[in-house]
C-alpha cells in the first residue's frame, strides 16, 4: 500500500500549525530571522525547515483573496533525487515516503555532492552548509510514524481545518476528483496526479496552480526515465567504440611508418 496526502488549498487558513508540528516532531531548530512580517513574501525551506506555508494574494475578477499553500517534498513515485544519487542515499519506500539515509546500513554513504538538489524538479533537498560535514535534509513523510502503526504525519495530525488528508494514495486521488466534480469552484486538475510521473502528495485548488507558485505544464514523464533513455546506451558505446578504435589502430598501424619517440622528444631548456 502506498500512502499519500491530499491537500485541499481551499481549506487552508495559513495557521502554520503544520510547520510547528514538523519542527517539534523532527526536533528542528527555529530560525527567527525567517519569520518575516511580510506575509506575501514566499518563504524558503531550508535544512531545518522541511515544510513551509506560503501566502498568496490572488486576484480573480473584482475579487481578491488569500490562498495559503503548504509546500514540502512531493514524494514522487519515481523520484529524481533517488535516480540522481550515486550512493543510494535516497530511497522510495513501498509505503510511499522518499527518504534520505534510509537504513541503518547506509547512514553515512552520502558524499555531499548535491546532485540531488540539481535534479529535484521541486527544489526540495536542502544542504547543511554551515556544518563541517553536512547532510542533505528534507521532509521524510514522517516515515517513523508511518511505520509505527500507520500514524498520520505530524503536519497532518496538527491541521485544524482538514486541509491535509492522509491515506491510501489511490483512494485520495479518487476523493480529490470527487471534490472537484462536486463543486464547480475547483480547478479541474489534481496537481501531482501526473506531474513528473505522479507524486504521493497531491493538491486541489479553486485558484489556477500557476498563481499559487506551482510549476505548471511540466512533463508527465518521470525524470529518471529521461536519464535512463541516455544512460542505457553506456555499455554498448563502451564496447562498440572500444572495438572500433582498436580495429582502426591496428589497421592504420600497419600502414604507418614507425618512429623512435626516444629520439624525437627532449626536455626543454629554460632559457
Amino acid at each position, binding site marked *: 500500500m502506498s500512502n499519500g496526502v491530499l491537500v485541499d488549498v481551499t481549506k487552508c487558513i495559513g495557521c502554520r500549525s503544520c510547520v510547528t508540528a514538523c519542527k517539534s516532531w523532527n526536533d528542528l531548530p527555529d530560525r527567527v530571522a525567517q519569520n518575516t512580517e511580510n506575509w506575501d513574501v514566499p518563504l524558503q525551506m531550508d535544512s531545518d525547515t522541511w515544510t513551509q506555508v506560503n501566502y498568496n494574494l490572488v486576484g480573480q475578477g473584482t475579487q481578491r483573496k488569500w490562498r495559503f499553500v503548504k509546500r514540502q517534498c512531493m514524494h514522487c513515485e519515481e523520484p529524481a533525487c533517488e535516480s540522481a544519487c550515486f550512493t543510494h542515499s535516497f530511497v522510495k519506500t513501498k509505503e510511499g515516503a522518499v527518504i534520505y539515509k534510509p537504513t541503518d546500513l*547506509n547512514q553515512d554513504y552520502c558524499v555531499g555532492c548535491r546532485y540531488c538538489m*540539481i535534479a529535484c524538479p521541486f527544489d526540495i533537498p536542502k544542504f547543511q*552548509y554551515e556544518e563541517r560535514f*553536512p547532510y542533505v535534509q528534507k521532509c521524510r513523510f514522517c516515515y517513523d510514524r508511518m511505520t509505527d502503526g500507520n500514524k498520520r504525519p505530524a503536519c497532518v495530525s496538527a491541521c485544524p481545518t482538514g486541509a491535509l488528508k492522509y491515506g491510501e494514495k489511490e483512494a485520495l486521488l479518487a476523493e480529490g476528483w470527487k471534490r472537484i466534480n462536486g463543486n464547480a469552484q475547483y480547478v479541474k486538475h489534481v496537481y501531482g496526479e501526473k506531474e513528473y510521473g505522479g507524486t504521493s502528495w497531491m493538491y486541489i485548488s479553486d485558484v489556477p496552480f500557476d498563481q499559487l507558485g506551482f*510549476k505548471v505544464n511540466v512533463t508527465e514523464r518521470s525524470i529518471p526515465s529521461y*536519464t535512463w533513455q541516455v544512460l542505457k546506451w553506456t555499455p554498448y*558505446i563502451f564496447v562498440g567504440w*572500444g572495438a572500433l578504435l582498436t580495429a582502426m589502430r591496428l589497421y592504420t598501424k600497419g600502414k604507418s*611508418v614507425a*618512429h623512435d619517440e626516444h629520439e624525437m622528444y627532449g626536455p626543454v631548456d629554460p632559457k
Partner: protein
Amino acid sequence: MSKPRNWSFRITWFRLLLICFVIGAVIAALYRFYFGLGSVTHLSDRWPWGLWIGFDLLCGIALAGGGFSTALIVHVLHKDKYLPIARAALLTSMIGYIISLISLFLDIGRWYNFWRPFFYWGFHSVLFEVFWCISLYTTVQVLEFGDIFFEKVNCPSLKKILGALMTPLLILGIVLPSLHQSSLGSLYIVAVDKLNPLWWSMLIPFFFVWSAFFLGPAMVTIEGTLAARAYRREAELPVFQSLTKVTLWMMIIYFIVKIIDLNYRGVMSQAFNGSYESNMFLIEMIVFVLLPIFLYAIPAIRTKLWGVVTASVLVVAGVVFNRMNVVFTGMAKSVGGSYFPSFWEFLITIGMWSFLILFYCFVVENFPILPKEEYLSHESSIPSKPGVHA
C-alpha cells in the same frame, strides 16, 4: 635521453607569484575542509553548484579534451605529422584531470566519503558514470605518462610492463573520456523544466562530447603557442594549421545539429525573444561558433599564426562560455536568487590553475615532452626506425 640531466626548476618572479597563489589556495582549502563549505563559499540551497563545479570541473575537463582528441588522431589514426604535439596534449590533459578531481574533492560536503560510489553502485545516476570514468581515465593518463616518466627515471622492468599495456591503455584513454565528456552533459538531462530549453536537450551529451573533441586541437594550438613563446621556440604552425580542418568541420556539424535540435523541439523562436538567456545564447552561437568557423575557413587567416591562435582562443572561450551558460545562465530563472563566487572560491580556483602552469613547466623542463627543436617544422625529419611503434 641522449644525455642525462639533473632535475631543474628555474624560479622567476612570475613563477614566484604563482607559487604564492598555490600556497594561498592550499591554506583556504584546509580551512574549508575543517570549517565546511558555508565558511568559504557563497553556495546556497538555490545554487548548490558554483565556481568549482561549473568552471574547474566542467570547463577543466572540457579543456583537457585535447588529450583524447590528440590520442585519437595520433595513436589510433596514426596521423604521424601530429606526433610533435602528442605528449604535450597528454600532459596538459592529465594535469587538467587531476585539478578537476581535486576541485570535486573540495566541493563535496562529506569529503571523507569520496570513495563510496566505487563500492555502492548507483548505476542509474549519470554522476556514477562520470565519477567512474573520470577516476579511471585519470589513472590511465598517469600510466600513459609513466611510459614517459621512465624514459628519464631508469626502471626498465616497469617500463616494459607499461609498454606492453600501452595499446589497451590508449584505447581506454579514448573510450573513457568519450563517455564522460558526454555524461557531463547528461548530468543536466535531469534538469528538464529547470535548465532553459535553449540548452536543455536530449542531445546535450552529444553537444558536450562533440565540443570537447573539437576544442582539443584549439587547446593544443594555444598551449603550443604559449609554450613556444615561454621557451622562445618556434611554434609548430604547420601542425596547428593542419588541425584546423578537424575543428572546422566538427564545428560546422555542431552548428547544424544545434539548429536542427532547436527546430525539432520547437524552441527556435526563444533564441530571438530578447530575453537575457536568448542574448547569451546568440552570443555563444555567433561569436564563439560562427566567427571561428569563418576564421578557420579563410586560408589567408588560418595560415597565419595570429589567425589560427585568434580562432582557437574563440573556440576555447566558446566552450567555457557554453558550460557557464548551462550551469549558470540557463538555470538562473528557474532556481532564482543569485550566486557570485566568494574571494576564497576564486583564490582556490586561481591556485589550482597556477599549479597547472607550474607543474607543466616543471615536467617539460625535466621530461621529454616537447619535440627537440631540430625536428620542428621538418615533418619528414621525424626519426623513423623499423619495428618500433608509437
